[in-house]
Every structure is written in C-alpha cells, then in structure tokens.
C-alpha cells in the first residue's frame, strides 16, 4: 500500500501543499484534475524523480521518501510514451530486465509472455518511430510491466490516442490491473476516463486534494461546487438564502431535503428533472414554467437549456421524448423535480 503524508512541493508559481492519500494494493486509483494542477509533479515525486519539499512517502509502511527511483519498483508510462528511439521494440521492452542483469532465458520468457498479452508479437523488430500511437502505448506498457512493478504510474497515458484506441486500451488497462494484481495510479484530466477505470477517484484542484471517493459517489455527491464544475456537472447554482428545507436561488424558491444556513450552492440533477408540455399534479414539490433557449445534441441524449425567469436549468431527454414533446427553441415547457433531486453543498 502506498501512503502519501503531507506532501508539499513548490515549483515557481506552482504550489502543492499538504497532500495526503492512500492507494491500496491492487487498487486502480485515478488522480483526476485539470491540466497544470500538479498531477504530473505528484507522479514524479512518487516515482522518486523529484524530491518533495516536505512530507513522507510510505510503501507497505516503509519510508521511501528519499529512496532512488531505480530501487522503488514503480514504473511510469508517460503521455508521449517516451520510447527509446535508438532501440527496437524488443530492446525497449527488455531494457529493464537487462538493466537488472537478468539472464537471457528469463528475458526471453518474460518478453514472450508480455508480447502475447499485449498482442505486439509482430512489432518486436520495429523501430518506435514506425509505430502508431496505440502501438507505442502498448509497447510502453509492456516495457513498464516486464519489470513486474509494485505500482504502475500512468501519466495521461491515453490522452494522445484516438477515441477507438482509447476505449480499447481502457479495457486492457483494467484487465492488467485485475489479472496481474498490480496497483495502478492513473493521472487524467478526463472525468469519463476516471469513471470507467477507477476503483477510487481522487479529485485534485489548485495543488490540493478536494475529494477521494468511488466513481459513483463522486458523481452523485461531489464535495463542493468547484469539484462539480470540473466534473462537468450541470445545474450547479449559487444559493442566495437557505433555510431548513428551502433554498432561494436565481429569484426562485426551491424545495430541498437537506439545506441549512451554511448551504452555498445546490445541484439539481439533470436526469431527475421531468419535462412536460403542461403542468401536472405529482408528489414532486418543485415545478416551474420554463422556456427552451438552446438545444444541444449529445450522443444518445439531448441537452435542453431552459429558463424560468432567472433560473437556468439543463435537462437531459431522449430523442423519443424530444419528438413527442415537439420541442423547439422558444417553446414553453414545465420542469418538475423532487426535493430529493437537489443536492446541497
């Protein structure tokens, strides 16, 4: 298990302060945050390539803060793969075993296993420059895995790939994590990637950890409006006044379940807003007459942007509902949602 205790690092104007978290054995841990937030610096600190200004790193209870990178057993895969351009794919993959002085029999056996697992047997004699992005990524992964690392550090490793290759490699990464029982720390700025891959997600903003939780609870209960905003969550609204069970926002009163004096923002979950052409009686306590102002076509859904006075809302509906309601810009609709559909920050 990897433990980070109060890690701090200042690099020019960038400040990472008092960062603490844990990664369990065989866990797929995703560090999620926007670019420039210090995710890559943290990867290099964990790998031993950069020294922290303060704090301690423990592996299975042993302090490794000052241990050399070659002794840690943590392998890194970068976004640009960093394959050695003067070596063939075979030489790239076996580099770590040769550096460790392994005999040629062991090298051959491990190479064969890894090449079969990553399905790159046909690439072994090629030069890295002749490989596609996806192939380079597989080679970089094989090169990292051949040394049987205790922890695999992936620094935006899928970001440079096209969507199909990315989806394919996501599956393979998860498979590697499960089959080899290897701990993975995956750094990404893509919430969807984090959602798909992670056992737990750690959201990092402004050099600080803001939330660590399972993917489902992160997206159901973001810890604060900034986290929600980074996750691309819609309908996060500032609260002007809050009292028990009621929030005043955008000049409207909204019934909620759990508001108190400290509530500063609410989040109305878009998928829990019901849209209708006319008002109807229901147990839902919030109902607003709205006007459609914009329509965004997503993959399988539509995002309707509607307003009720100064209250802006985004509602997700299916194409079938869209056609049934005969929605068009300027049309009047009714938005209905329960108080339980409102999350308070």
């Amino acid at each position, binding site marked *: 298990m990897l433990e980070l205790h109060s890690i701090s690092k200042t690099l020019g104007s960038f400040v990472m302060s008092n960062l603490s978290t844990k990664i369990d054995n065989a866990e797929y841990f995703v560090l999620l945050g926007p670019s420039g937030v210090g995710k890559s610096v943290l990867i*290099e600190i964990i*790998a*031993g*390539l950069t020294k922290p200004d303060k704090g301690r790193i423990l592996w299975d209870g042993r302090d490794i803060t000052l241990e*050399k*990178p*070659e002794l*840690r*057993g*943590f*392998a*890194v895969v*970068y976004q*640009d793969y*960093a394959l*050695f*351009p*003067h070596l063939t794919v075979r030489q790239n993959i076996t*580099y*770590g075993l040769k*550096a*460790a002085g392994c005999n040629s029999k062991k090298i051959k056996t491990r190479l064969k296993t890894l090449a079969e697992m990553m399905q790159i047997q046909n690439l072994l004699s090629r*030069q*890295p*420059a*002749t490989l596609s992005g996806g192939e380079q990524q597989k080679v970089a992964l094989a*090169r*990292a895995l051949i*040394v049987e690392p205790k922890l695999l*550090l992936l620094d935006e490793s899928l970001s440079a790939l096209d969507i199909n290759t990315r989806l394919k490699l996501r599956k393979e990464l998860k498979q590697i994590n499960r089959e080899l029982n290897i701990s993975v720390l995956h750094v990404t700025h893509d919430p969807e990637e984090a959602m798909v891959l992670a056992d737990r997600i750690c959201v990092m903003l402004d050099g600080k950890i803001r939330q660590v939780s399972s993917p489902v609870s992160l997206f159901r209960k973001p810890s604060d409006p900034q986290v929600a905003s980074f996750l691309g969550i819609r309908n996060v609204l500032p609260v002007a006044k809050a009292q028990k069970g009621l929030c005043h926002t955008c000049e409207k009163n909204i019934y909620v379940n759990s508001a108190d004096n400290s509530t500063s923002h609410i989040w109305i979950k878009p998928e829990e807003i019901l849209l209708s052409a006319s008002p109807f009686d229901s147990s839902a306590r919030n109902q607003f007459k709205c006007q459609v102002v914009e329509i965004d076509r997503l993959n399988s859904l539509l995002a309707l942007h509607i307003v009720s006075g100064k209250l802006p809302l985004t509602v997700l509906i299916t194409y079938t509902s869209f056609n049934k309601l005969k929605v068009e810009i300027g049309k009047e609709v009714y938005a209905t949602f329960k108080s339980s559909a409102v999350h308070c920050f």
Partner: protein
Amino acid sequence: MKKFHQYNIPWFELIFTALGSSVILFVIAPLISMVFATSFTDLTKTAADLQVIQSIKLTLMTAFFATAVSTLVGIPLAYLLARKKFFGRSILLAIIDLPIIIPHSAAGIALLTVIGRQSFLGRILGTGLTGTVAGISVAMAFVSLPFLVNAARQAFVAVPVRMENIARTLGASPSHTFFTISLPLAWRGIISGMILMWARGISEFGAVIIIAYHPMTTPVMVFQRFNDFGLSYARSVAVLLILICVSLFIILRFVSKPKDGKSINA
C-alpha cells in the same frame, strides 16, 4: 502591356538571396582563388616534401590527442551543464566560451604562465611544455574546447529528460542510464563537436606559435614559409591544409545527418 508593379516580383526573396549569396561568395572566393592559383606540380611537390608531411602528421596527431583528452573531460561537463540547474551555471557557460573571445596569441601567453619553463608546473617538473608535442596539444585544446563542450551540451539538451526518467524507473542506475540512453542519443551531436574541435585544433596558429615554434605544425609552417620564401611557397602548403580541413567538414556533415527512425524527435 503590363506595368512594372503588375509583374508580382518576389522582392523579399530576391534581396535576401542576393545578400545571402554575398556571404557565401565572401567565404569561398579566397579559398577557390588560392586553389586555382596553385599549380598541380607545386602541390604534388609540396605533398612529397618530408618536412611538410611530418608537419601535417604532427598537426593531425596533436589535434586528435587534444580532442580525445578533451572529450573524456568535456562530456561529463557538458552533461552536467545540460541537466543540472545550479548556482553559477551561467558563469560557467561564459567561462567555457572565453577561449573563443580572447585573442589566441594572448591565450598562448596565458598558457605560458601555466605550462612554460618559468611557471609553477615548469619549476616542479624541471622543464615546461613549451616546444613539445604535449604543449601544442594543450594550446590546441585550450582554444578549441568550447566547440566540443557546446556541441555536446546542446546534444544532451535535445535528449528528453523523460527518456532518462523512464530508464531510472525501470531499474537503471544513473551511470547505466547515461551510457545506454543519454550518450547513444546524443552521440551524433558529440561526434560533430569532436570533429569541429579537431578541425579547429588543426587550424590553430596564434596560441600554438607562442607555445611551440618547433616542432612545427602546418599553420606555423605556412607562416614561416611566407616570411622566409614568399607567397608561392606558403600557398601550396596552405592549399594542402585547406583540403584536409574541407575533407573533415564533409565528414562532419555526413555523420551528423540524422537517419530516419533514429532521430530523437522522431
């Protein structure tokens, strides 16, 4: 009939090409004119002259020795300057460039105070390095070392740090990483620097003549023959020397040309 401004003449390209051509002409005109002014008979006679052959051998050998020793000590320095950020780094970079800035005769005089008979070293050894092959090499190394260090430093800078980082996390020690990743990826630039230093050492006159008039390197011989026998005697030796230097530069261009698929940035 079209007016003058309707011809769409690429003035920018024309002016820059004309200015650029004048630079090229300025460099090659004296060299070509000297080669053509030297008869083939004079050239073969000079090439058969034992003194000239010995002098060329001495020049090539001392420049090679200076380059070889400088490479051993210059590469670690170049690597440190490329990779490490430390206090006084910019001062060190300026110090390395000093031999290019100062007049080479002054460099020779400065060297005399360190390796001459009256120097501290000379007194300890009982004799200085003046008038010796070693002394010539020292003079050549002093004035041409910046070419090697700067070329090697730039070559190391061009190697992405991430490659070295990856090697370290795969279990390679700093020295293993240096010899298997950094050095092979930078070698083309280093070889260019070595050849540049060798060629610069061969052509050195100012510092060498202060340290050793004898044994006579080829640039000193050109000067001596010009003084004692006149232009035509000096010219054929000069042409031979220039042919050697030009050959070295052709090799330099050849080895430093990257091959497809092996370039660092590929």
